[in-house]
């Protein structure tokens, strides 16, 4: 976060921004935090920490810009810098490093999937959620930001500090991985082959 504070909001203005622009996003923030940590207490800490930082650095928030994207960026950074460090999870390979090693825009679009549209439509909420939650955090994050929270590629690039081309290719890879998971659910539901069920 920038240490340069271009202007000072009055105490009244700060309260107004906090109440009208920051707080209405608490539902999305908490769900994002929960989907990153899978733990209620950790999600609460992460959201609380994010709001305290947001208030502390409120002068670097430009009124009229997207408060939700600004808050999501703080939450994502807090997760990487604070939560991941102190969590006891074994260190995972950071996908971004792997990705920049390979040509990030070189995505294989040719792989086809035999997943059927009607199988996807019949999926239960739990199956969808479990499939999403089983993805590595960097893949999970882009799907949450794009599909659940409706951020644009440009906003996602800012939240994640990566180029738009990388947003696009990571999303494509994430969805392919998700399709793999959904396909295995589909096969257990009897959608595994082309033979029609009795209905």
């Amino acid at each position, binding site marked *: 976060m920038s240490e340069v504070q271009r202007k000072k909001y009055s105490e009244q203005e700060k309260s107004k921004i906090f109440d009208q622009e920051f707080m209405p996003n608490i539902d999305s923030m908490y769900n994002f935090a929960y989907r990153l940590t899978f733990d*209620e207490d950790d999600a609460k800490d992460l959201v*609380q920490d994010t709001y305290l930082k947001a208030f502390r650095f409120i002068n670097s928030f430009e009124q009229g810009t997207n408060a939700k994207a600004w808050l999501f960026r703080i939450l994502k950074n807090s997760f990487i810098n604070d939560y991941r460090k102190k969590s006891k999870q074994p260190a995972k390979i950071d996908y971004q490093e792997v990705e920049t090693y390979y040509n990030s825009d070189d995505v294989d679009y040719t792989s086809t999937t035999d*997943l059927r549209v009607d199988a*996807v*439509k019949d999926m239960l909420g739990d199956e969808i959620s479990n499939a999403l939650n089983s993805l590595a955090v960097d893949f999970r994050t882009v799907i949450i930001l794009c599909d659940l929270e409706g951020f*644009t590629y440009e906003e996602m690039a800012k939240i994640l500090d990566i180029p738009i081309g990388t947003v*696009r290719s990571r999303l494509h890879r994430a969805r392919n991985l998700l*399709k793999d998971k959904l396909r295995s659910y589909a096969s257990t539901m009897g959608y595994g082959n082309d033979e029609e069920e009795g209905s």
Partner: protein
Amino acid sequence: MDDNSTPSGDRKLSCSDVSKCFQLLESILDGENLPNSKEMLNEKLAKCEPCFKHFHLEQAIRDVLKTKCTKQAVPSELEASIREIIQDRK
């Protein structure tokens, strides 16, 4: 839109530029504003079977993610405790 239609005789069964087409379809589904996207989309869906299939599968996945993912309720005391800490620090 009906997804159950059988491959239309009018659609070609292989796509000559899958990478470019699928990337375009995905950008359109993700709400990116591209020039002439509507026209390009209609043309692809009418003429190319792989594009047609890819578009509808990708669309279905986005729809179920949006509508079916389980949501967590925000703990009732969270907002109050954030406000309390901020007040204490003032």
